[in-house]
């Protein structure tokens, strides 16, 4: 059963340092006195707060509900009292504060009632809503609300469901340990996913540097419906698009969803969380986090969401002397933690304590010599040095033309650059500038439209007023005239006024479609034509 694997462009082979944390079993943490639970733990709209300071909560009780479509719920990690709802440090590259619910534990850890879901019988849409209320989000790092991804859409089926157990980032081993220790539970979660998506085949991709995890999952597969595939160890082999390509040879088209090529990818951790939510009825309350690097007892921990990073590092024996800061995530794509009181969230898979020996300061940058090492390493087949010139010069239009937004920020280019240029930093900068500009642009467009509409409205009101006035004057004048003439004149005047109104309305209404480029005008014409056609067929 040797599946044909495809290899993507570039990639790098940094030192793994996996055995630092992968040799010990997942440990649990003691109950803490205080948890800080942010409302923004997923991609999309932050959850809407449901509790107030002073409220008592139970473990697993929702403290914030999904708000809008791309959102998911947040739950209390233990029982106790809400002592504050306020801005606190959160794990974010900005180091800014964000709204959090601070819960003081009562020490009892009383759970709310957990209702398992009858996933085979339940209506798919109802099941998805329950997963949204269970707070499920992708645990690989992107934290996209899972219930949305578990919708097969109009097709009602999917060709390939991929479980991502590649874990290509150096140092991180949380998925590795999870697969070794809870392979059976992962597979139960996978079964639910398969049911919900109607997937034809299920592949679990695991890098071949994790033989134990591969063996554990292979041993746990019972029905042979799931294929466990060892993929070559190359960073970023665990990036969604790259793993998809490695396993299927299909490239996710730029700007499209993976479902467009019949693929959906979930992290193995998400499958495990899904198992808990569906089979046990327990919302997403904890996740596995790797604590590694310069700490006394590195390893993996089952951590309640809301646990301050400081307490987690203490649980790993504390940072050793000479530690030089913490990274949230791995060394390739993580970010520096500003404040250790920031909590573990659904997105945090690793706390890496740095030291100068393993993480020396980046040497000063030299100019780019266009050597192309970055392009050879780029898994998206971009030309990072070209993007760098454009980003540095703030020539954002050109950067977009060279497909800046296909950059997955994996860091391979920065890793190999002989001039030590922080290429990815430039790409992040350029992307966020472009995003802001687009927001400003759409804000300005809205403001323009609203302003023009207000002017139109004022004009219309003026017209209507003067018409009313004219009609009244005519009425008064006609009172003196003979009855039939009076009626006739009245009718004529009204007719004229209505015509005038129609004309002005026609004259004014298309205001926002004046001065359009020919392309847009053609489009409008085409739409009109379609509309007429549709009306014609309706009759």
């Amino acid at each position, binding site marked *: 059963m040797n599946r044909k694997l495809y290899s993507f462009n570039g990639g790098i082979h940094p030192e793994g340092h996996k055995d630092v944390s992968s040799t010990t079993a997942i440990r649990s943490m003691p109950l803490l006195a205080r948890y800080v639970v942010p409302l923004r733990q997923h991609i999309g709209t932050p959850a809407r707060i449901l509790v107030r300071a002073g409220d008592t909560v139970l473990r697993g009780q929702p403290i914030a509900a999904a708000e809008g479509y791309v959102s998911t719920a947040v739950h209390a990690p233990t029982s106790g009292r809400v002592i504050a709802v306020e801005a606190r440090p959160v794990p974010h590259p*900005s180091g*800014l504060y964000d709204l959090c619910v601070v819960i003081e534990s009562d020490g009892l850890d009383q759970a709310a009632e957990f209702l398992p879901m009858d996933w085979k019988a339940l209506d798919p849409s109802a099941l998805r809503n329950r997963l949204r209320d269970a707070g499920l989000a992708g645990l690989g790092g992107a934290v996209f609300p899972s219930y949305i991804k578990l919708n097969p859409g109009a097709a009602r089926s999917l060709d390939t469901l991929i479980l991502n157990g590649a874990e290509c980032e150096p140092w991180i081993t949380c998925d590795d340990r999870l697969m070794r220790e809870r392979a059976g539970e992962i597979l139960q979660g996978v079964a639910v996913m398969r049911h919900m998506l109607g997937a034809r085949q299920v592949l679990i991709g695991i890098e071949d540097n994790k033989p134990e995890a591969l063996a554990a999952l292979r041993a746990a597969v019972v029905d042979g419906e799931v294929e466990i595939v060892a993929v070559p160890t190359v960073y970023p082999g665990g990036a969604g698009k790259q793993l998809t390509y490695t396993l299927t040879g299909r490239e996710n088209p730029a700007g499209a969803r993976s479902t467009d090529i019949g693929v959906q990818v979930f992290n193995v951790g998400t499958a495990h969380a899904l198992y808990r939510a569906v089979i046990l009825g327990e919302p997403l309350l904890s996740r596995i986090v790797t604590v590694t690097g310069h700490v006394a007892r590195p390893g993996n921990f089952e951590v309640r969401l809301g646990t301050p990073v400081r307490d987690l590092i203490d649980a790993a024996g504390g940072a050793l002397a000479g530690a030089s800061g913490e990274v949230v995530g791995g060394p390739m794509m993580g970010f520096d933690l500003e404040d250790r009181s920031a909590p573990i969230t659904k997105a945090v898979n690793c706390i890496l304590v740095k030291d100068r020996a393993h993480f020396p300061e980046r040497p000063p940058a030299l100019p780019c010599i266009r050597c192309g090492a970055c392009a050879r390493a780029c898994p998206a087949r971009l030309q990072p040095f070209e993007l760098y010139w454009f980003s540095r010069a703030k020539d954002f239009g050109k950067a977009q033309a060279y497909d800046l937004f296909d950059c997955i920020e994996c860091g391979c280019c920065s890793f190999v650059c002989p001039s030590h*240029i922080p290429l990815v930093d430039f790409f992040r900068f350029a992307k966020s500038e472009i995003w802001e500009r687009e927001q400003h642009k759409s804000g*300005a467009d809205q403001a323009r439209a609203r302003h023009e509409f207000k002017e139109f409205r004022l004009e219309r009101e003026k017209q209507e007023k003067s018409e009313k006035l004219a009609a009244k004057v005519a009425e008064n004048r006609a009172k003196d005239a003979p009855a039939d003439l009076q009626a006739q004149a009245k009718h004529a005047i009204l007719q004229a006024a209505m015509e005038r109104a129609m004309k002005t309305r026609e004259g004014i209404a298309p205001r926002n479609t004046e001065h359009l480029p020919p392309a847009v005008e053609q489009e409008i014409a085409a739409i009109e034509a379609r509309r007429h056609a549709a009306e014609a067929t309706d009759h």
Partner: protein
Amino acid sequence: MFSAILVMAGIGLVLGGVLGWASIKYRVADDPLVEKIDAILPQTQCGQCGFPGCKPYAEAIAKGDADINLCPPGGEEGTKRLAELLGVEAKPLGGGLEPKPKSVAVIDDHTCIGCTLCIQACPVDAIVGAAKQLHVIVASQCTGCELCLPPCPVDCIHMEVVKEDVANWKWRYPIHTMRRVA
């Protein structure tokens, strides 16, 4: 001599003809200049430029009646883009105008008497309310033009600078450890 002049004139005629034909055949249908300028202006409709809105200012620029550096909400960036569009030198804001951080107006619930004057002043209909009812400003639609401040008889509207938060935070321009990378 004569034939040389004839040849030159002939070449001139032919080339001129070709160029003329090409300019008709390959004419680029252009957005009117006013629209292009208006697209760059931030649409706050604040009137700080001295014109009653962005469109009138755009028209004035297009006619050459107004300078390009009169728009504080557009800031340096806006002036730069206008300069690029019009092919002139960019310059700092003129007329004693200063760029301001993006702000939104906020109504104090306790003071508002529901007079509707601000609603009439708002150029983008971002204020909701009725007579003798508390008015509310829709923050996401507010352009920060400050036109609602003067009409308010009880001074219950104030401007709040939009603070940086996790959602609107931007990555900074990377700092180089070297003095110059060039």
